[in-house]
Each structure stands twice: as structure tokens, then as C-alpha cells.
């Protein structure tokens, strides 16, 4: 009797330890899996671009400072360009020369249009067709960037107080084997 009682206690303790161990392991595992997002450093808004002396023209100025620039769609009017999209597209259809390349994907050029219709803070992002980050042939990117920087028909947008305002705009270029296929938005 005594022996079976001891065995019972021993087995119970073993079982309890096993349960605790399983619980511990589960908690730890969950905690490890729970760090879904590493701590992120956010600027004011997603997509904001701080001045970078290595990239940006110091002569380009935001009229209302970094904290007030809106997005091109915030006023509900979407992308606005003199002559509308056909005029903007023409600059690229006429200015871009297809590059002999197997590269296909999207290239985004994001920039700011200030309250005078001037542009600056150009930032480039590139992806292959499967949304993997990539770097296109510089001849492709340089052409698109040059033409984008030369665009001078951006409509000045106004804020809620009807004051001219700065806004973020982007253009996305769909490239297929070095040829320009579509311009968004």
C-alpha cells in the first residue's frame, strides 16, 4: 500500500511537471511567434520623405513644412495635371526610349508638389512582377526620373482653408521587358 501510494505521488508529480513544462513551452513559443512586427520607426505619415542632402535639391522648399503636406487624393480630386492625364502621359510616351532588357515590373516615383507647383524629394521604388524588390537597369530608371522631374503642369492643390498646399504625388510605371506599358495613377 505504501509503495503504491508513493508511486502514485511520484507519477502525479511527474505529470504535474510535464503539464507545467508543456504550458511553459507553449507560452514561450507563442511569445516568439507573437513578435509579428519588429519595432518600426514611423514618421508623421506613411510615405513621408524627410529632406536628404544627398538626394534632394536644397532649393526645393515646402511652403507649409513637413508636417502639413497632404496626399494627392485627400481633396477627392485625384491626380491633377494641366491637360489632364493625356498631357502627362505624352511626356513619357514621347520622352521614354525602350531599353533592351528582360526586366519587367513596376517603378514608383514619389515626390512632393509644393504650393507653387514645383516638385522635389523624389524617391524611387522598384519591384519585379511578383512584388519582390528589385533594381532595374539604370537607363530605365534614369529616363523616367528625368522626365518626371521635368514635368511642370502640376495643379496647385488647396487645403481646407482654401490655401495653396503641399502634397505628395506618385507615378507608377509598368515596365515590360524594358518598354513602358502603363502609367498610373
Amino acid at each position, binding site marked *: 500500500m505504501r509503495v503504491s501510494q508513493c508511486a502514485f505521488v511520484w507519477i502525479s508529480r511527474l505529470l504535474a511537471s510535464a503539464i507545467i513544462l508543456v504550458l511553459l513551452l507553449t507560452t514561450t513559443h507563442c511569445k516568439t*511567434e*507573437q*513578435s*509579428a*512586427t519588429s519595432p*518600426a520607426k*514611423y*514618421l*508623421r*505619415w*506613411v*510615405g513621408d520623405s524627410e529632406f536628404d542632402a544627398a538626394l534632394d535639391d536644397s532649393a526645393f522648399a515646402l511652403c507649409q513644412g513637413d508636417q502639413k503636406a497632404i*496626399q494627392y*487624393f485627400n481633396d*477627392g*480630386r*485625384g*491626380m491633377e495635371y494641366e*491637360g*489632364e*492625364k*493625356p*498631357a502627362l502621359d505624352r511626356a513619357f510616351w514621347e520622352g521614354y526610349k525602350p531599353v533592351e532588357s528582360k526586366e519587367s515590373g*513596376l517603378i*514608383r516615383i*514619389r515626390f512632393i508638389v509644393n504650393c507653387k507647383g514645383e516638385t522635389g524629394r523624389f524617391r524611387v*521604388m522598384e*519591384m519585379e512582377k511578383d*512584388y519582390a*524588390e528589385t533594381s532595374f537597369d539604370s537607363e530605365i530608371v534614369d529616363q523616367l526620373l528625368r522626365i518626371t522631374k521635368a514635368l511642370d503642369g502640376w495643379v496647385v492643390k488647396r487645403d481646407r482653408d482654401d490655401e495653396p498646399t503641399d502634397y*505628395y504625388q*506618385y507615378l*507608377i510605371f*509598368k515596365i515590360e521587358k524594358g518598354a513602358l506599358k*502603363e502609367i*498610373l*495613377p
Partner: protein
Amino acid sequence: MKIALTFFALCIGASVLAQPNCQAFLYYGDTLKYEACEKAKECKGHYQFSKEYQQALDAALEIDSTFGPAYESKSTAYLKSGDFLTWKRLIDKAVYYNEEESLGYRGWCRYQFFRDYQGAIDDIERLDGLVDHDIGYGANGDYHLHMARAICYKALGQKEKALEIMEMQLAQPDNHVGLYDYLHLGVVYLELDDPDKAAEALEKQIEHNDLAEAHFYLARCFEARGDWEQTMLHLEEAKRLYAQQRRMADGYMHYDDKVYLQDILEAQAAVSNAK
């Protein structure tokens, strides 16, 4: 789940008033998701692009990294800023953890923002195969997802396939005709060299939602028939409606088959020269 959808409505627009029902997670015994859901509510009142909005959702994901709705809500600002890399990483997680609820959204966004026609088709068709109910509309409500799928097929040059899907969707007894459905149908018929069927569809468009684009393409139907008078009449009507802002519009992106003033003026000049 319906709870997740209610949550999206709350956070994707800062001003949406719907209250999320995180309690449902408790009902189903998922306390972790309940806590994450409650935490994610702290994004309410913040602009979706803002640091505060993103941080609230990050905090929710720290509680439960499998809480799919938080990934989808985070992704929207990146989508609208044109950041296809971060958007895709986030929306893929949303789809992974919440497939039925996020797949249609991902498919729509692939089309609307990145003109990823094949990707949109794949997502919409996958969703269609997963569920036995109506797969619903794109995020802005302008198109049923099947119509969006049809437009994607058209963009890929598969016009007959596009036509088949459009006709099928429009024939559904409970279908709500979208703002531009008949317009796109008319354009497909035009591109398939059937100006009579095109005109029929475009007349329906005019009756349903009179637009500059409808008259522009109707003018082309008359041009194909050699009726110059009607061609010019409809081009003039297109110009008039355009000036009144009665035209296809989306706050983020241009729509397929959209027409601009320059297109109308060039068409008028071409017809004048051809007469």
C-alpha cells in the same frame, strides 16, 4: 468573419462610426484575438496614414500576430501611397490569416492601384472557388468583383472571356448594376467589332448613369455605321457632359475606358476632317 469586416469599416476610414464586435472572438473562445481586436480599436479616430494609427495596429499584432484584420488595416496606407512592396507583405499576411475576408480586397487592390490584371483575376477566382455565396464588390463599391475580373481579362486581350463574364454578371437576378458596367460592356462589344450590340449597351449606360464616356463611345458606334451627324451629336454631348463633371471618376486612379477632354476634341477634329 463579419466581425472582421465591421472592424475594417471602422479603421480604414477614420470617420467610420461602426463599432467592432470583438466579443465574437470571446464567444468562439479565442481570447487572444479578442484582446488584439480590442487593442486595435485604438486606431479609431486616427488618420490611416498616421503614426498613431499604425502603432495601434502594431500593438494589436504584438498581442496576436495572427490577427489578420490588423494587417489589412495597416496595408491600406501603403497601398494608397503607392508602396507596393510593403503593401503586398502586409496584405499577404492578412490573406494568410483571414483568407475569405481579405482575398477579394487584395484582388481588387491589385487591379485598382497596380493594374496587376492576372494577380487580380487569380485572387478573385480563388475567392469564388472558396465560397458558395456572392463574392461581393471591390473596396470602393463601384464594381462587383466579377466585373473587375472581366475588365482585367479585357485588359489582357481576352475580350471574349471578358464579355462572357460581364454578360453573366449582368444577368444575375440579384445583381446591382454598377456605375459603369454597361459602359465597359459597350466598349468590349466595340472592340469585338459589334457596334450594334455596343450601342445597345451604351444606351443602357446612358439610361442608368449618363456619362461623357457613354456618348463618346456611342459616337464611335455611329461612326462605324457611317452616320456622321449622330457621331458629331454624341461627341458634342460628350463634351457638354464632360464640362459638367458627368464622367468616370475615382479619387485615387483613372478607370479603364475613361475618356478625357483631349480625346473628345481629337475625335471631333478627326470626324470633321473625315467628312
